[in-house]
């Protein structure tokens, strides 16, 4: 019962933040509502027993990535979004397509929810850092090392792109 109430509260905060992201016209307001979505998601991860993922969500997403966004918004002095015509294909094909997809996925999940089973509130010793780290440095060692190369390449790409030509 507690699990359900907590899930509904955090889920509603999530959806409200995401809708606010779409409604707001100033990018800084959108960025701040995205922070709200990410914090609520990290609480939902805690409900699922994913301690490590919840901490990384707050530190990396709500911290580092959103600071980068806010920094760029302020650097470029981004103001209110201009109202322009937009893409007609996106309006005519995209939006109905998304609505149909959302309806189908939602209906299927709810209709088949008996077969999917339940999620219990996560025990705290399930997703703690120790267990994730053990897996990361044994089974998934090679992908982990490859991501470090990926990060290095991304840093170099960002520096090259951000450098003023001259």
């Amino acid at each position, binding site marked *: 019962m507690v699990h359900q109430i907590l899930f509904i509260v955090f889920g509603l905060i999530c959806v409200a933040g995401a809708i606010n992201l779409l409604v707001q016209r100033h990018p800084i307001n959108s960025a701040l509502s995205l922070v709200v979505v990410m914090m609520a998601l990290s609480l939902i991860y805690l409900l699922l027993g994913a301690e490590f993922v919840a901490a990384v969500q707050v530190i990396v997403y709500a911290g580092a990535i959103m600071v980068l966004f806010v920094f760029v918004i302020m650097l470029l002095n981004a103001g209110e979004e201009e109202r322009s015509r937009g893409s007609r294909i996106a309006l005519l094909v995209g939006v109905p397509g*998304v609505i149909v997809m959302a309806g189908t996925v939602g209906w299927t999940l709810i209709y088949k929810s008996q077969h*999917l089973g339940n999620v219990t509130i996560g025990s705290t010793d399930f997703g703690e850092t120790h267990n994730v780290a053990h897996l990361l440095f044994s089974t998934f060692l090679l992908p982990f090392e490859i991501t470090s190369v990926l990060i290095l390449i991304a840093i170099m790409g960002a520096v090259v792109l951000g450098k003023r030509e001259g």
Partner: protein
Amino acid sequence: MVPLSWYLVLSAILFCLGIFGFLLKRNIITIFMSIELMLNAVNLSFVAFANYWNQHAGDPGVSVVPLSGHVFVFFVMVVAAAEAAVGLAIIISVFRTRETLNVDRVNLLKL
């Protein structure tokens, strides 16, 4: 006890809101934030499935690496961080040449 489908429906709702933002917003930074929202939605379903399969780890016919969902979320976050760094650098360089953040005005490659 919450049905797994609730988590998946929440994930689908967030993903679809992200697609709506991607299609309807005109500001390149907000479009980029919508992509981040979609990545977050996918992460939520990974974590929900990780919890679900952890409970069923001992069942006959089920062979899963417990917690592999969490590790995959970790990799998604790494890729998202790299993508944010490169993408925002691209946005800065687009702004430098075109002096605008509106995607309708960045249309040199359009037929």
